[in-house]
């Protein structure tokens, strides 16, 4: 796995707000493969694929794949065990 090509989860902040209706980059997600918990902003994201691929910083498992086709985003949750979302 090249460490040259990933950016941080921050880059998906806008799309995550669209999906969850709240700022998500400071919320935690848990890898279903290795159990590592990290803030969404610290996840590894590869944006040079046909979709945006979020991977676990600890074990590199694919956590989410976001594929946009025109005004629809297909969200594949892959190996994300859970994500915390703030509620009012």
């Amino acid at each position, binding site marked *: 796995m090249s*460490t*040259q*090509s*990933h*950016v*941080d*989860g*921050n*880059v998906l*902040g*806008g799309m995550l*707000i*669209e999906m969850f*209706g*709240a*700022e*998500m*980059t*400071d*919320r935690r997600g848990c890898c279903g493969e290795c159990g590592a918990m990290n*803030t*969404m*902003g*610290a996840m590894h994201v590869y*944006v*040079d694929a046909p979709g945006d691929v979020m991977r676990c910083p600890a074990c590199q498992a694919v956590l989410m794949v976001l594929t946009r086709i025109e005004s629809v985003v297909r969200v594949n949750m892959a190996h994300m065990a859970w994500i915390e979302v*703030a*509620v*009012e």
Partner: protein
Amino acid sequence: MVGTAVSRRLTWIVAEVVGLIDETATARSIVLHCPGWVGHVAGQHVDIRLTAEDGYQAQRSYSIAAPADGEKVVITVELVDGGEVSPYLIEDLIVGDRIEVRGPIGGYFVWEPGRGGPLQLLGGGSGVVPLMAMLRARVEVGSDISVRYLSSARSPDRILYRAELERLGREARDVDVLHTLTREHPDGWPGLTRRVDAEMLEDHAFGAGEEPLCFVCGPTPFVEAVATALVALGHRPDRVKTERFGPTGG
């Protein structure tokens, strides 16, 4: 806590370009008037969307360069060779143009004076943009939090905000500014002349014992090297926040 954390709709705003500032030969700050802007915290970013006449859309994320100021939002864009968005923003955009903006975005790589310090800012290339927003926020409120700002640039003509930084380094109390040049440096250059490494951090950054909040932003290899060195020097990983960018098609 960023005040906008809980449930909001993120909508595209049609922003008007109200100012353009050439920062270097390859970077420009764009001052946008964003009607209905909710305010932001230093370190947050915006998404910019451009739509061509045939409907083709391109979207990019840019860090905000200055603290909240009503409906004014300033971004700084660095030219990416072969990119499809940055050349337009730097070479073609004029005052009065309208572009779509949404934000603010990000609750992780953010700082405001209430979060304390000392503040260690480490930027590579245009990775200094969100760090400049933090430094400007610190200066604007007259906080006494100590700040050390270390930027890495290829050559002196690529240093962003150089004149303002030199002035702050001279005039603002407890603000240290240092640049390192990685490719070209003129004779008599007073700063450093290599990539940021552990030895440079030991000599010029806050030590781990001072428990600084460290913000590291830049290209992925820069961030990896600096964050790894900081942790090796004893800084707690949860006090080292990183933001990596590129290559994202510019």
